[in-house]
């Protein structure tokens, strides 16, 4: 069975649990490093960023006083989740990621061609998610405290990232809740933030028909999780000497990470955009060139045998191996030539 199908199935299960789990099953808490929106009323678990921003908006005396224990518990829970699962959250669990993958499936089914970011554009916007992360830390801090002698920020800026996150208007829609699909006219700040939220939600929905998973390139949660790339339990390793630079991994990668094909010397391949979807391993024809590991132990490795088996199955089904790689050794799409 193809990995992307297994992944889609797991994503669907996680989506149902995270959006409707609160109705019947227990909740797994509010410190999950994934975009499971807290505004979904029947949620089975929710995003870490909301309580994180709420904590940061407390006055220092309170944050490091009476709320310190609770804050540390929250941080500890997040670190534990991130350490154990790391970027797996992005590729296998995130509801917004699942929605983007669904839109991509619909696009492929309808027959609309996808686009890719030009590499220069991609590099140019790498800083955006880190800037968003810095803002979602600094803005709430300025509500409860005076930063650098500045006057305190308006409480309308509370949870600033959640106010513009596309998950806020879109995820509650699956519970029939339209109450976040609004423009708030109560203050200028609210007006700007709610308008931005609608714009980003529109961009999310329609942009998904153009590019794959492009919102993830701006996700501050990915920036947070990338802190655990090297130390996380789940890893992706590359054996440089086995790699033939065929470029299959790059062409199959939903996140369009060129380092996976370019770098032969690098051992740890979980980069800041990687979401550990394992597609690169699936399409790699070289024995043990790429390996997924859990605490250093290999769990899924690339193999010529497996590659050929999957290739034959796809060929007998009458389609290309995957939608966007009709030719496996194509110099025209080879990352090295493409980068030029």
């Amino acid at each position, binding site marked *: 069975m193809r990995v992307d199908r297994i992944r889609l199935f797991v994503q669907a299960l996680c989506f149902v649990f995270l959006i409707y789990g609160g109705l019947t099953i227990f909740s797994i808490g509010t410190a999950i490093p994934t975009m499971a929106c807290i505004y979904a*009323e029947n949620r089975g678990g929710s995003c870490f960023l909301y309580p994180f921003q709420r904590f940061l908006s407390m006055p220092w005396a309170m944050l490091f006083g009476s709320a310190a224990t609770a804050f540390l518990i929250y941080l500890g829970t997040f670190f534990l989740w991130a350490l154990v699962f790391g970027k797996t959250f992005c590729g296998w669990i995130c509801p917004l990621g699942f929605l983007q993958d669904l839109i991509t499936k619909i696009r492929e089914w309808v027959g609309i061609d996808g686009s890719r970011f030009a590499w220069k554009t991609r590099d140019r916007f790498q800083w955006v998610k880190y800037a968003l992360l810095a803002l979602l830390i600094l803005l709430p801090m300025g509500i409860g405290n005076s930063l650098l002698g500045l006057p305190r920020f308006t409480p309308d800026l509370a949870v600033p990232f959640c106010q513009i996150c596309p998950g806020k208007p879109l995820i509650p829609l699956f519970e029939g809740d339209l109450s976040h699909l609004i423009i708030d006219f109560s203050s200028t700040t609210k007006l700007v933030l709610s308008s931005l939220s609608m714009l980003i939600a529109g961009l999310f*929905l329609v942009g998904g028909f153009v590019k794959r998973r492009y919102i993830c390139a701006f996700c501050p949660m990915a920036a947070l999780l990338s802190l655990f790339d090297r130390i996380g339990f789940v890893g992706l390793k590359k054996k440089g000497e086995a790699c033939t630079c065929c470029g299959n991994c790059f062409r199959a990668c939903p996140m369009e990470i060129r380092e996976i094909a370019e770098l032969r010397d690098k051992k740890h391949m979980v980069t800041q955009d990687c979401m550990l979807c394992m597609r690169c391993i699936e399409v790699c024809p070289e024995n043990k060139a790429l390996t997924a590991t859990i605490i250093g132990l290999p769990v899924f490795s690339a193999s010529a045998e497996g590659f050929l088996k999957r290739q034959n199955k796809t060929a007998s089904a009458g389609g290309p191996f995957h939608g966007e790689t009709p030719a496996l050794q194509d110099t025209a799409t080879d990352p090295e030539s493409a980068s030029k």
Partner: protein
Amino acid sequence: MKKRCPAASLPPMQKSRRGRCFFPLLLALIFFLPMASPADPGFLFLEPGPEMRRSGGGNTQGGGHGTGMGMQRKKEGQEASENERQADSKKTGMEEKEEKSAMKSKGKGHPGSAAPESEKGEKKEREKRAAMSHPAHYTLLLGWPPAMKAQAPEDLLRAETAILRPDLSREILTPQKEGPAIRIRDAALIQGTYHISASLEKTDDEGRIFRLFTTASMRNTGEKTDPPEKNPETALEAHLPWFSMEDLSPDPGNNFARIHRKYTGDTLPLRIRLGGMPVPDLPVTLTTAEGWQQTLHTDEAGQVKFILIKERFHDKGVNKAPITFYARAELDSRSEKHLEIIKSVRPDAGDNPPAGTEILRTSLALTVHPTPLDWESRAAGFYTLILTGLVIGLGTAIRRRKRRGRWF
């Protein structure tokens, strides 16, 4: 230097001026003296206390679901009040009671109610529970709405207050003086609706007996426990005061993640009962914090439905903060109709009602949030979303048409 007028140039004192002031003064006395009279205590209310207000609002009908006593918001540099110091020491009314009778409640489904084995374990358990708990903190108010202050008379310390928890354990709470106010305090730990009731009896100089009753309820998202074995309706019947005013808003169900609030413009169904019997044709008055009020009469089932009045927000800018609405009803034994109602639920008393005039009053204080429809527009949101989609979609299609010669 001021120029002084010679005495001769001053106009003579006019006697008729006194007469001009007399009538407005008399009118003011007629209208305001009964209200200001210390003899008439007014109505008894249970309003969410500062801890519940600080905790941010949410799943309560009378306040907010909180982050627990360990996370109270306090302004920088502000001295901890007696109340907060007490909260910081993780000492709640319920815990105190449990310390006294830990064995009594053992195994009743209240988390942490079982007596810990060691003192250290007990302390740890208490700290854990206090951190998990949500405040059930109510201020007792006495007077005529909406002009009521937390500066409460000492009489309120005599008020009988009780809480009925979701596990159907009932406890008598003791009102305590906290600064100028008189409050009751408990810690809500488990999931469910908590019902609080209070009653007070006062007699004035003329021998009139005032029996004042009030209720409040709050929902807590705390730890889930097994459903109680007893019948919750029966327990609630027993808990409600003799002359009760109940909020019959639909039960929000078992989803405690859902935020349940009352908004202006919503319907508020109330039921008035005396000794468990519905009171028909009784005027019930709903007063807003700004003093707007409406009076409706109960039907045969003792029920009345109000539409929560919208406050005037336009002259204050946008007000998103919750406001308190007060509902009140009165039975006066001087009225023959009311006397009959009182007699009907006191069959033992027969034709000998209590000596003197008896006035029964019941009330309910409700926290109501201004409806977001005052400042939010779903239509604008929807159109922005659609327009963004159209602009991006069309833009991409036109760009592709130019570059690749086809729309998609």
